[in-house]
């Protein structure tokens, strides 16, 4: 989905930027530069389904070329090379990109809060403190899920090393089969949409704890931020108007997703993000949101600090400076 070479594009961009200066007073934008948008299969892309659908139907002024990837491996090189302008990625990757490109990436908005849940085949877990002495099956060792879980356990007075046993698994499937097979109670931490997938496979699977709520309960201004929307800072500089329009459209799109779950689920399936039935069940629990400006800075900044304390490498070695947080 990213065919045109960067150079050609740039000269066209400067041209349209000049046009834009002339017609600044117009309410209608004349900047019809194509936005090359990237997203990953999974919750972080769900919020933009409507936006993409509208753009492709011509119901919006935005000209969007959307690339959906199964892994960040596909998006990162395209973004770094200037073949993607905006993309929705995990929050720590945004920070890593900012650090590794020396500020060439800026975050526009937070688009997904926590998607991690403690699930339970029994009913003995109602809150995080109930986890004491339990074995928790989980995925995401060495990545944000691990850091988030450990942080939350600590904040709730549990020592992640001694009070609980965390069994790290490589694949959610392993955990689901463990739950399906075991007659004993199994407690696990799973991300969406795997919680939903697992519920379809394991009878009587309870969602015991929403880690997002637990994080918010700490009330320190930060949030468990799963996904953000990043923009190439060069692109943002050249097309502030367009970016602003995009942000508006994006906000509307997330609101639409949260309010019209059924409708957006079919769009999500059409975009090949996940299947509609799964999306329909998962969306209410994916904490799709839209935050920009200072609220974004508080939520994300605090979260990145938590990650930084546990493993600086996970956010690219340093806390991003203020210019990381885009303001319009």
């Amino acid at each position, binding site marked *: 989905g990213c065919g045109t070479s960067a150079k050609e594009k740039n000269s066209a961009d400067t041209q349209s930027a000049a046009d834009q200066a002339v017609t600044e007073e117009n309410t209608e934008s004349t900047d019809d530069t194509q936005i090359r948008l990237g997203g990953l*299969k999974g919750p972080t892309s769900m919020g933009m389904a409507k936006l993409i659908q509208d753009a492709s139907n011509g119901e919006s002024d935005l000209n969007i070329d959307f690339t959906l*990837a199964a892994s960040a491996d*596909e998006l990162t090189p395209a973004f770094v*090379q200037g073949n993607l302008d905006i993309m929705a990625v995990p929050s720590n990757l945004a920070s890593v990109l900012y650090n590794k490109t020396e500020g060439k990436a800026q975050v526009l908005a937070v688009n997904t809060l926590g998607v991690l849940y403690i699930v339970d085949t029994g009913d003995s877990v109602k809150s995080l403190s109930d986890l004491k002495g339990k074995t928790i099956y989980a995925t995401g060792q060495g990545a944000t899920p691990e850091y988030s879980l450990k942080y939350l356990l600590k904040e709730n007075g549990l020592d992640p090393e001694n009070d609980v046993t965390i069994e790290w698994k490589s694949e959610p*499937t392993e955990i689901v089969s463990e739950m*399906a*097979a075991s007659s004993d109670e199994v407690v696990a931490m799973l991300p969406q949409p*795997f919680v939903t997938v*697992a519920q379809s496979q394991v009878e009587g699977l309870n969602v015991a704890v929403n880690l997002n709520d637990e994080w918010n309960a700490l009330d320190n201004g930060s949030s468990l931020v799963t996904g953000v929307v990043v923009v190439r800072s060069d692109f943002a500089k050249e097309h502030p108007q367009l970016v602003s329009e995009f942000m508006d459209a994006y906000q509307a799109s997330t609101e639409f997703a949260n309010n019209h779950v059924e409708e957006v689920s079919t769009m999500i399936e059409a975009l090949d993000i996940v299947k509609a039935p799964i999306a329909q069940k998962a969306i209410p629990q994916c904490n799709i949101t839209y935050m920009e400006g200072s609220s974004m800075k508080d939520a994300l900044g605090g979260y990145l600090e938590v990650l930084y304390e546990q493993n600086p490498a996970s956010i690219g070695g340093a806390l991003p400076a203020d210019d990381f947080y885009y303001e319009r």
Partner: protein
Amino acid sequence: MKDNRIGNHKTIWIERTAAIAAVLVVWEIAARMLDQKILLASPWDVLLAFGELLHTPEFYQAVAGSFLHIAQGFLLGLLVGSICAVISAKVHLIEILLWPYMAAVKAAPVASFIILCLVWLSPSGLSVFISFLIVVPVVYTNLLNGIRDLDPQMKEFAECFGIRPWKRLIGIDLPQLRPYIVSSFEIAIGMAWKAGIAAEVIGTPDRSIGKMLYHAKIYLATPELFAWTLLVIFISVLFEKAVTGLLKLGYQRLEYRI
């Protein structure tokens, strides 16, 4: 002597079917013992899933798409691998210069260079390239060792009688290289499929088995996952038999090309 390995064609296919039946029995028993449908689907469930797949048009598109890419990767790898082997056998300098690349291609984990690949390649190009990369060292190494093992006495004969390169290849070198070529094909085709589908699982290009397999996997649709996997094995076996069959035919005709 060299022909008896192919055996009677009809018998061998009957035997193979029997062997597959034996595998199915083992599999059914294992599935019952484990009794976890998510982990190990039973042959029957897989058959049902397969039957359903057959009714979707995506099935045929996926098969055609993957076949096209992987066959392309295999043929490219075969070409590059054999050309490099032939030149390396003749020119020591080239062999030495190629050496670090071959070592890297053989041992470098795909995870390490996948990002670099995706800079230049589309997801479907990735599967061509990754299967190409697995085929090259197999063909190169086997062929180079085969060429080195060529009988020097026959080489001397060819030089003495002034036999031209093409005829020499047909009459003297190819017959001696036969087991090395067969071996390369038998290893490389299977591995090209393995690697190519793995690349598709990463890049999930449209119309590919890898994408379907990926979806089956994340949705825990184990019978489908197994059905796709068996399909991959099946196509790879068919492809291998077709290629080695062609090879055998080619060898039978070799004498008339002298």
